């Protein structure tokens, strides 16, 4: 399946995105999204960046600090591939 990482926010609000093909089952993806779900009560970081993961037409906010080791390479690559959306 194709997943897309979208980054928003920052000192000047820029939207960046990168996508990749991954070999994850729907069940695996669903449990991953639960693990990396941001804490809704966490205070907003001033000028911070925020991330969303888009699969198909669904977008979910994600906290990259919570990504388990086995998926870290996927997200590191996505992060390094982020390009500004014009």
């Amino acid at each position: 399946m194709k997943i897309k990482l979208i980054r928003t926010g920052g000192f000047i609000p820029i939207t960046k995105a990168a996508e990749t093909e991954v070999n994850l089952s729907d069940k695996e993806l669903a449990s991953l999204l639960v693990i990396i779900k941001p804490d809704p009560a966490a205070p907003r970081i001033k000028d911070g960046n925020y991330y969303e993961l888009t699969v198909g037409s669904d977008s979910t906010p994600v906290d990259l600090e919570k990504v388990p080791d086995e998926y870290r390479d996927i997200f590191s690559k996505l992060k390094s591939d982020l390009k500004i959306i014009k």
Partner: protein
Amino acid sequence: MCKTHYNPIHCIIPPYMLTRLMESGNKKIADLAIKSNFRSFRFRNDRIFFQKASQYEKDILGLIAKQTGKEIMQMEVYDCRQKTDLIGATLLWDSKNNQKITSVAGKNVIKGGKASWDFYWQLFGRNSIDNKGLLIRQYVHFDKGMDNAYWDGRRMIYGDGDGLVFTSFTSDIDVIGHELTHGVTENEANLDYENQAGALNESFSDIFGIMIKQRYNNQDVKKSNWLIGEKVMIGPKYALRSMKAPGTAYINHPELGTDPQPATMDKYQNLPNTQSGDFGGVHINSGIPNFAFYVAAFNMGGYAWEKAGRIWYAVLTDVNLAQNAKFADVKNLTIAHAGRIFGINSPEVIAVRQGWLEAKV
């Protein structure tokens, strides 16, 4: 494993791993994991509570961060070595030992941090971010090519830039002053980071950031170009923001297009209060109060921090500035403080009124 004890569950472990351990068939491991999870929950909630607490509540509850209490600047600078692990960052420099360093980013934040501390102390008698001598912590070289700088509630963090559109976010003193001022705001009105209050939060950071730079460079209101982050953005025609002419910091940039900031209230952008909506356009609509400040300061003449800066600082530290303040609230408070400081019929009051009038607030 922690150095002080030898049970891995007592150490910082990722939540997904903790969840697995809590479900372990080994009762001892599961019990320890549950206790660890409880401690983490309490720690997270304490952090959230303290971040949202007012200054009064913080005072009642005691200190929540390392404070020196001394009336001298205390600062530490850490090198993240392009990683995202703040705990593993190396101490590069501290004000106590004043080590010689070669890192340009490190030198930049020392310079910017000192200029910011001096600004608040020498002009307003403010002892650091919390006015209680808080140790200023700055982290440079965070992540690989991160094109951002931010205040995370306790410290300032800077990326090196992507090298294409942005260079190091430590390159401009106003950016450093901007981030440090987020800490000041958090310790004062603690303006909500959304909609008009969020745009005011951003604007106070820009206003004090530009004045810190102007003072460092000995620039009066005419000499300053009122640009924020002109070195951070690569290319001589670009900056992150213009306070003199919001919406013109970058025009037809090949990657970014055109600066979206409005200068006047009739162009206010009603964006959704979401991550992708910049929480109601906090970095976009801040152009409006920024422009009001610029006009007021310019009309007063001289150095911005001598008159306009005094008025805006009085507002930032006024207990009547509500956490969910709107532009009109800050307008009224700036007029009131200008009248209190300089006289109700003073040229300064007229300049402040003119600023908000031109910003159409």
